[in-house]
């Protein structure tokens, strides 16, 4: 069962790795976007979103992720999702997120894709 949303982040090879825990909804999505803008305004243009501990996402959460993707597309940046739960991966595929973002098994694998 998903817990309340929390996140942490770290800078790795000039990209930010955001690790989330819990339900990615309005609250969770907003926190992810805020964290993204914090690093993006400092010139970080590559983002890894590790969703290992988030296995539930709603469409509002997805709209925040799309906002990040659009922003990065305008600045030639890249978003890579990692550690995706199969149901979330399927949801993202249907929603078309992988047309503009990438996916990898782990953050270490993702770093190689930049």
């Amino acid at each position: 069962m998903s817990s309340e949303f929390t996140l942490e982040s770290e800078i790795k090879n000039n990209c930010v790795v955001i690790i989330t825990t819990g339900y990615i909804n309005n609250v969770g999505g907003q926190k992810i976007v805020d964290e993204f803008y914090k690093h993006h305004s400092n010139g970080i243009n590559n983002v890894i979103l590790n969703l290992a501990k988030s296995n539930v996402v709603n469409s509002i959460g997805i709209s925040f992720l799309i906002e990040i993707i659009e922003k990065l597309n305008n600045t030639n940046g890249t978003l890579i999702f990692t550690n995706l739960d199969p149901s979330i991966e399927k949801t993202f595929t249907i929603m078309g997120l992988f047309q503009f973002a990438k996916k990898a098994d782990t953050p270490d694998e993702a770093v190689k894709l930049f």
Partner: protein
Amino acid sequence: MNVVEYNNLIDKLSLQVKSFQEGFSLLSNAATLKELGTDFCRILQGNFFIRDVNIFFKKNATHEWECIIVHNEKCMEYLPYLKATHEAHIEYFNDTEFCVTATLPLTDGAMWGLVIGNKIDKSEITEIDKITLQMFLQLLDNAYQSFINQKKEKQLIFSLNHRVVQLNSLIDTGIEISKLHKTSSLLELSLERAAALTNASRGVLRIIADDGIATEIGFPGNSDILHVLSSEQRIDTGVEFKHVKYLYSLSEKESRNGIIDFDQTDEILLQAFARQVLAALENEHLHTEAIDKERMHQEIEMAATIQRKIIPQQLPQIEDYDLAGINIPSLEIGGDYYDVTKLKDGRYLLIIADVAGKGVASGLLVNTLNASLNAYVENDFQLTEVAERLNKIIFNASTPEKYITGFIALLEPESGIIEYLNAGHNPIFYADNGKLVKLDKGGLAFGMLDFSFPYESTRIQLKPGEKILFYTDGITEAMNHDDEEYTDQRLEYFFLSENSVSAETFIENLLADIKAHTKNTPQSDDITALYLSRNK
């Protein structure tokens, strides 16, 4: 206007047409409202040589103006000139800093507001500039419409994709929960999927048993259940299975602009998830039942195998006698039993018995009878004593409604003397010189009463050419489609008329005659018979 001026004007207009085209292309690609305003600002700055282009936006007439681009704070003083009208409104000023204010109402009720500063070269706004400005405002109007359409298109695609996600998730969840054996897991899964697909902030599932004891599951994990249940922005549904209620509640549907009302689709989705859980619970229950039934079937099959071993596969050969028997149980475990045993003293013990009822319990009693009888006839014995002991054993081993009727006979082969005892069994047929004699003396059925009932035995002599038929009431009561029994009379007639055939043929013909009566009617009782005839 001379030719040069005319040509200049044509050149200028051509440039502006090109500028319009490029401007529209730029504005159409704006991803946000701010981007749209910023790009329009740049277009005006480039075309009119003006630095101070201040742009405002309001969602509708009742909203305050929102700053999109402000280059000069003094422009705020001109906001009162931005009128909320139904048509584009432009005012021109002869001011040291600002020369134009413009209001552009939009199709969705929103409006743009512009406060434009003086030209950098301090030149005045010309008539051509005024026409050009009007055309640029039209350009902004079109670009905004395009921007709105693109936004709507995106929303539509998003919404359609989300519907696909909802349907897909509904199907996937149905499959997933049907695989889960732990009931709590499937309940948690259904709750979190329902919450996510309806954009609910929180959810709770209450499982209320018959005795009022409730289990509560919250989503996300540490959600305040009371908070969900007291929310006015809530949808509920429930299912009931085996007197346990499963009540789902979701609260606070999210949007990017805050909490909104759940719609009918959300309620349908929640109900669909609840029904899936109900189906999964029913399937799990049916699956468990099927396993239990299969196990019970296997146990009955095993008991039936044991039971079949009690019925002799082959009867002993008795010199100068012909002997055959048959037992066809109506259920897997029958309540009928027969046996023929050669005793140490050369006599033969013949028995036929019928337990009241059929099934496992009857089978167990038959086993008890068989084991006890074999134990008692090991050494010297009196038939009546054996009967009394069997009565006690069966009484103690069975429930009040269970008892065994039986017919026990001891045959001395050489003399043909038969000592028999009928314990409540139907009369056994004996053909005494062509005349039917019914052997019915003995006593009550075994296990019927718990006291030492005086059984009595009787002797007859089976002479050459004479015969005895042991049978159970499954033969005489065999029914046809019209609920008509085979009857004692038909069996008597068959017994007396079926002469000069072997014991085996007698049994075969008897079965054929019963079949001719019952035709395809399912067998309702065990059919058991034992036939003995004396040749010499």
